[in-house]
């Protein structure tokens, strides 16, 4: 990492001219953004804008991608997905990805520890007491909210300091949304860096430091939390509400 990057805060993730394709269909058209260490950044955008695809491309899960994804100063564009995961990125996909052939405990312990300093299982049950009660149930027999908790919990164990969450509040009751909001807040205090995709604008503004607005596979605007109040109208037009 060069000195320029080190000015105030260090860059955790730097995405440059990222392109990605599903087969022949070109979905990301040069995504450009970065995330500083300790920051919470949210990708906003309409349905189909390419937010999920961006996360998948960062994780190396797109078959075809080009451009640059630097993680902690390491260029990952040519690394296989499993090597990228090992660099210390925890990923919670849009469809949660709880395994039905594994019970809750196995789901929780599945992602291998990649760094020291992850949450202990006590910490996790402290955060998500529901999980402790259902430890031996089949993973997919949990409620949607519990599955979401499990999906987040299992990546906190691994020691990954960079967490990628795709719509963690989707379809959840307000109480649980609040709980997840508090969890993100606690993670930030612990020094985690978080990249988030969110449709729920209220939730997003309550947790994020910065917002990248995505449209047609490009970042068309970046706002800080301070900008948000002043630009509600602009945001609403971006999101088409």
């Amino acid at each position, binding site marked *: 990492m060069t000195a320029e990057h080190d000015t105030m805060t260090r860059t955790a993730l730097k995405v440059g001219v990222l392109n990605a394709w599903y087969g022949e269909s070109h979905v990301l058209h040069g995504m450009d953004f970065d995330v500083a260490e300790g920051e919470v950044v949210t990708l906003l955008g309409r349905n189909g804008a390419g937010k999920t695809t961006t996360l998948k491309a960062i994780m190396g*899960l797109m078959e075809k991608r080009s451009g640059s994804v630097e993680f902690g100063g390491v260029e990952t564009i040519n690394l296989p997905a499993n090597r*990228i*995961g090992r660099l210390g990125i925890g*990923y919670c996909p849009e469809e949660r990805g709880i395994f039905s*052939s594994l019970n809750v405990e196995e789901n929780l*312990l*599945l992602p291998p520890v990649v760094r020291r300093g992850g949450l202990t299982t006590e910490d996790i049950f402290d955060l998500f007491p529901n999980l402790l009660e259902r430890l031996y149930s089949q993973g997919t027999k949990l409620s949607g909210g519990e599955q979401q908790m499990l999906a987040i919990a299992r990546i906190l164990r691994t020691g990954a300091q960079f967490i990628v969450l795709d719509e963690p509040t989707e379809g959840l009751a307000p109480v649980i949304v609040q709980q997840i909001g508090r969890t993100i807040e606690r993670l930030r205090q612990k020094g985690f860096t978080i990249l988030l995709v969110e449709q729920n604008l209220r939730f997003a503004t309550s947790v994020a430091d910065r917002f990248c607005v995505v449209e047609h596979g490009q970042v068309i605007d970046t706002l800080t939390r301070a900008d948000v109040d002043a630009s509600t109208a602009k945001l609403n037009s971006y999101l088409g509400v």
Partner: protein
Amino acid sequence: MALNALFSQLLIGLINGSFYALLSLGLAVIFGMLNIINFAHGAFYMIGAFAAYFLMASAGIGYWGALILAPVMVGLAGMATERLLLRRLAKMDHLYGLLMTFGLALVLQGVFQVAFGSSGLPYPIPEALTGGVNLGFMFLPLYRGWVVVFSLVACIATWYLIERTRLGAYLRAATENPSLVRAFGINVPLMITVTYGFGVALAALAGVLSAPINSVRPLMGADLIIVVFAVVVIGGMGSILGSVITGFAVGVVEGLTKYFYPEASSTVIFVLMVLILLVKPTGLTGRGIEATQSAVAPEPASAQGRERVALMVFGVVVIGLALLPLTSVYPYFIMQILCFALVAGAFNLLIGHGGLLSFGHAMFFGSAGYITAHAVKVWGLPPELGILAGVAACAGLAALAGAISIRRQGIYFAMITLAISQMLYFVYLRAPFTNGEDGIQSIPKDRMFGVLDLADTTVLYYVVLAGFILGTLAIYRTINSPFGQVLKSIRENEPRAISLGYRTTLYKYVAFILSGTLAGFAGSLKVFVVQNASLTDVHWSMSGEIVLITLLGGLGTLLGPLAGAFVIISSQHHLAEFGQWVTVLQGAIFIACVVAFRRGIVGELAKVLKISL
């Protein structure tokens, strides 16, 4: 005394059950991770036994060493196979995996046959396990007891590994969602390689266990794997424990049959499969993973007008064939090609246009041959009625076999048709009218319709050619009828066809009957050409040959079967002196077709010329 015999048959049943369990367990583990039905499983079982033999013969390593070393060696070979070959199939239809591993099995078995012939090599029982104990109600040979116990332990250990350990959790998770598991930092491609290695190592372990009992033969796994397919159809591949229990249970049923009704012992497993499918079309566990849509044939014939090009080319070819007797070409050879081209065309109707891979078309080809031969020779019917009898019998057979198999898709359909065909093989092997290994020889060549003297080679040639043209036009007509259009849309997207209100099962069923009937027609014609009907034509290797001809010629093309038959039958003719190398070559062609050449000869040609053939 009788009780004694019962118990010893039960013991043999348990031993066979051990092999079924170990093999179907390996198949299930492999299928879970790779989505491939490993047809080469029987070959790896055989190689396991050979590895034990070699270790003993060349390095002086005995049974106990072989029990560990042989599976490890075979496992490593399996890992190399996965890396070099199977990996290329990722994301392709399951059926390609079946085809490629079938080719692999042919290559491996062929190589060992070339090197060792078909007879068995002896392998001694390890000294510590010779002799036996008298249990009062029976005499238990120690080695046999050991095989059962050890297999059981190996099965339970595998179950524990997969269901109760960390590594097993990775495996189960990767079966469900490989890319997410990868994103967690786990090297899934490596796991896939290791899984395949592990699966075939289990097969090799079974091979070592069986070496002292069954002796070591190149084809020891070839028939076994078909029985194991039936076991898999019965038990499904969804659960580890299910495979193990089904394997042992089926072995016991087989053992009991050997005692109570020995005539049925080689068919009982297939009968069991058929009965279970009749009662529960989805198999016992009901969780048999169905292959998704089988879009096996690469994008075939497009616009209606272009179809005519194929017909025109076909016309030109036919004219050429009609002029053939004027030349000095030996017609016998061409007649054989025509018969094979017709049966492959019938098969192609099913796979190329219906997306159904039948691995049992030899049952029609061979049955029709037997019936026609018997009708003409024993009943003294004229040729045309003999052919009619053969064709009608095949229509009936197809109606039965279709009723059993048609509701299952993809690999399951392939395994079921293969199993039914194998069952018939054993029936014909024992039925008195087929003369067993000798077959029905010297078929009389009477006058067809009272005028056509089939003893005259030229007349026979034109009769066969006319049959070929008739059959091919029937296929062409079917494909281009509204029925064929519906069939095509089923192949492309069955759920959509269902939602449009088509009773897709019925369409597939009719296609199956049509295909079986036409295949039978080819088999009946062939009787007059080769002058006999024999077991070769109902054997699974004949089904494989039909698949190969079609695949090589070009799935879903009108002229592919003829091109494929020409290449395959002439290579058999010209390379006959090389013995089993022909099998190796055919296996290699299978693999090459699947890896690099999925359109086949005619398909590639059509692509280059931008026309539809």
